[in-house]
């Protein structure tokens, strides 16, 4: 059985214009999601291939968000296939844990400890470690926001969740990071 060739030179030109400019960002995102340079390389290569084959689905709206969405989705499917143990997905948590992670609590109030208001004093290594250990759904929004510097709307598009969820995940993810870094002292 032979695979029909559907891509042509125009598709290649479109790929060069749409996906290639974001390759370095793609690599960073992949490395933060996968945690290792060699996995990131595999993910970026597979993302590029997927982007090329799907270049006709690019809607000429936001090339950067479109490209990073492919990288994000490829990373998660790649991890699920090759490193299932490293991927703590949202679905592996119990409903109560999910609720806990997504929201503060039933009353929408939280208790603040004095440590939480002290300025953060952590070195790069500690911050790196804390971020790397964050559950994937929080890590990805923080990486997209701080490292790829995307706005809420683009993050929502890339992660395929509503903006409200992006906001609560960012807020909760940052609190988890702070708690983590606070515990270390």
């Amino acid at each position, binding site marked *: 059985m032979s695979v029909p*060739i559907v*891509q*042509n*030179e125009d598709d*290649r030109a479109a*790929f060069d214009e749409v996906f*290639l400019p974001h*390759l*370095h960002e793609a*690599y*960073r995102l992949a*490395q933060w999601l996968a945690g290792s*340079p060699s996995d*990131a*390389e595999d993910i*970026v*290569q597979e993302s*590029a*291939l997927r982007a*090329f084959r799907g270049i006709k689905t690019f*809607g*000429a*709206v*936001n*090339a*950067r968000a479109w490209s990073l969405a492919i990288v994000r989705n490829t990373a998660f499917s790649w991890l699920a296939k090759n490193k299932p143990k490293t991927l703590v997905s949202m679905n592996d948590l119990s409903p109560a844990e999910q609720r806990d992670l997504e*929201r*503060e609590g039933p009353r*929408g*109030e*939280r*208790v*603040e400890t*004095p440590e*939480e*208001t*002290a*300025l*953060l004093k*952590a070195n*790069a290594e500690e*911050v*790196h470690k804390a*971020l790397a250990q964050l559950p994937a759904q929080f890590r990805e929004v*923080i990486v997209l*926001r*701080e*490292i790829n510097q995307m*706005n*809420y*709307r683009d993050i929502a598009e890339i992660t395929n969740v509503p903006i409200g969820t992006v*906001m*609560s995940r*960012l*807020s909760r993810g*940052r*609190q988890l*990071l*702070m708690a983590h*870094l606070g515990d270390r002292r």
Partner: protein
Amino acid sequence: MIASIRDSDELQLNAYCDGELDPVSATEFERRLANDERLKARHDRLMSLRQAVRSLPQPEMPARLEGLIRKKLDAELPSNVTILRRRNWSFQSLAAAALFGAIISSSAMMMIAQYGQRENVASEVVSGHIRGLLAPQPFDIASSDRHTVKPWFTARLPESPQVPDLAAQGFALLGGRVDVIGHDPVATILYKHAAHTVSLTTLRPGQSVPEQTIAGYNVRSWSDKNFTYVAVSDLPSADLASFERAFAAAAPAPEIR
């Protein structure tokens, strides 16, 4: 000391630090920050966390990766076939092509030069749009009332366009700003369509700007006898086309200037 901070405060604080609050809410929030020490402490801590994450050393992509990807994609193209076919070209047709090439090249150069100019206009218009989106608000004058925006332009520019409100057609008037294209100040009218902003820049009439995508933004242009209009947005081109129809239908009559 134990204090409780409301959940919505936490979200607002995050949105404020991320620059995602609208100007009015941001000002309100700043007022609260100034009067609430505890909130201010949380703000400072959040900003120090953001700074710490942002300044993490970032992994650099190995240079060979791009080459690897290009090679992989080349393998997907039916390029071998093309190369064989090219070899079959006779010298005669090559010579003819060269001669033809020489004849058309002078006019081609002119076309390329013109094309370059039009590209420039389009990219300057897109730059204006992007600058507008990055600013706290994309307009110099905020008003959904065309009777406010139009006189504002008239007071600043030699030629000012019609400013129809197209809210009924799904494009609500946001306001206007003055962009500088080339060295000329020109009027740009802002419209909002759902969460998308459309910048409509008005240039001297008789220019042709091809439909294109620059930096992810769609550019669409049309002319009437008063202006050449260039619309820029992240909307799909089909939506920009319906914007053109709505605008052209609403602003047909030349106004006495």
